[in-house]
């Protein structure tokens, strides 16, 4: 696990734990996002992503630990924090009986930094019918309206919690373009949680994988992909490898084929394999983010 504090942290979770009765949703989570970075928070369903984000937003009290966004404690100054953060949740429960324009007019009053021209530009770009009632908007338009509300007050931090769940590919693309536009517009810190790994890979410069409330890895996306390799080794008949090399995330052994995902990979890993086991053939493969993610989760499941 590596974190690179290159600049002051815009988002900081230190030893955060959340328990619901006996069930632990988030366990000792420490995550730091430097200002200007885009972090993709990925994990399977129930991993604790939304819980962590809600604690960060002050929408859920922590059992232990501390959280800061731009140095603001969400439990102490929730109003100040919400003014500085643009938040798009997974589900959009915007007042259904209001028209989109009314929702915008209502929200505008709470943000001193609200930018009307930007709001109009975003609404126009997303082709949101502002005269329609929220209950008549499509799921895609609703997500885009939520993004407009999150971006129009020009927040320093943008938190997106699986905002594209259930959107069709076109709506997803338009939504992503909106986020990218929002990012390009000014240097923002973004925490982006999603199941769509291709979207995460496209957006995020840093990746954090979370499983069962625990952080498995957090590092630069390029670094993660560069240092994580899949090794396919074929060993001689009768050999059963029992000591995987250091840094093995996941492994599978079937007949003579031994598959290993290792991070950090180095030539020493191959030397160890060749030196320890009667290896006939070894191949090293690059992995995409999806495979890396799957192997981290599979590895945890095997360990469990």
């Amino acid at each position, binding site marked *: 696990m590596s974190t690179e504090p290159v600049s002051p942290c815009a988002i900081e979770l230190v030893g955060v734990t959340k328990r619901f009765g006996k069930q632990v949703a988030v366990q000792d989570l420490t995550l730091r996002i430097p200002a200007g970075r885009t972090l993709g928070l990925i994990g399977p369903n129930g991993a604790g992503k939304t819980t962590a984000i809600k604690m960060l937003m002050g*929408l859920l009290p922590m059992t232990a630990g501390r959280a800061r966004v731009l140095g603001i404690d969400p439990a102490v100054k929730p109003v100040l924090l*919400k*003014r500085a953060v643009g938040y798009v949740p997974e*589900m959009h*429960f915007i*007042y*259904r009986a209001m028209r989109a324009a009314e929702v915008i007019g*209502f*929200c505008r009053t709470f943000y001193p930094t609200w930018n009307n021209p930007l709001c109009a530009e975003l609404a126009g770009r997303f082709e949101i019918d502002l005269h329609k009632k929220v209950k008549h908007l499509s799921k895609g338009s609703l997500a885009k309206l939520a993004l407009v509300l999150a971006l129009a007050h020009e927040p320093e931090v943008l938190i997106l919690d699986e905002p594209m769940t259930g959107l069709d590919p076109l709506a997803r693309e338009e939504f992503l373009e909106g986020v990218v536009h929002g990012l390009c517009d000014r240097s923002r810190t973004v925490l982006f949680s999603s199941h769509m790994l291709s979207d995460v890979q496209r957006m995020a410069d840093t990746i954090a994988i979370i499983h069962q409330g625990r952080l498995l890895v957090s590092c630069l996306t390029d670094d993660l992909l560069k240092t994580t390799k899949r090794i396919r080794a074929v060993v001689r008949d009768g050999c059963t490898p029992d000591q995987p090399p250091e840094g093995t995330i996941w492994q599978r052994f079937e007949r003579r084929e031994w598959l290993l995902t290792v991070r950090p990979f180095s030539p020493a890993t191959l030397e160890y394999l060749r030196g320890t086991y009667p290896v006939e053939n070894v191949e090293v493969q690059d992995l995409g983010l999806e495979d890396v993610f799957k192997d981290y989760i599979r590895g945890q499941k095997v360990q469990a």
Partner: protein
Amino acid sequence: MKALLWKDWRVNRVVLLAAAVGFLLPYFVGPFSNLASYWRDGCYVVWSELLTDCGFFSLAISVLAVAFLGGNAIAGERADRSAEFFAYLPVQRAQSMASRLIVVVGAGLLVWLINLVVVYWVAPHVGYVSPTLAQQLAALRHQTMPGITLTAALAFGTAWLCSSLLSSPSIATALGLVSPALLFMVLAIIWDIVRGSTPWYEAEFIAFWYAILAPALACLCLVTGCVHYLRRVEP
């Protein structure tokens, strides 16, 4: 604050409109039935008495209205989950609560005040009122008004508390409406237990303790509901 008031008006619009209809209904039905009775049988209720009756009917209906308003005030947004959206906005809890209270209590008080003006000020001065009828109406006002007022206060207070605790406006409203009856039943049971040791008749005993306990419980519920809402982390 203006935006919050507007939002609370929007959220409670249906209940507020229903309360307005309930408030006005007796004032439409009463005169119509009086005129119909006059055309059919040639007899009618004098306008002063009719207006007083309409005022009391309107007040009785407004007990339902305040329970609905109290029950919907907080739980209504939880039920459709718009409370989650509201929770993301940078709004002080105290401001949000004040706005809800202003809208629902304001609406209830407005209905109440108009009816009070009708019953106490307009009705006694409409048309000819014989001294006997004037006495009867004054007695009616004296006997009925405190009961309705206390019942409305208790229904609202309980509904408000339940609304701050629950996510179902219908359950909060139902509990608000049931609370005066429950208090009445409890007092009746207590009287049954202490009947031998008290010089009071049942009605006197219940009326006395109802007059003390209903406003006390209403205030307690209102304050507890407010404190719980301020401390609760939504949603």
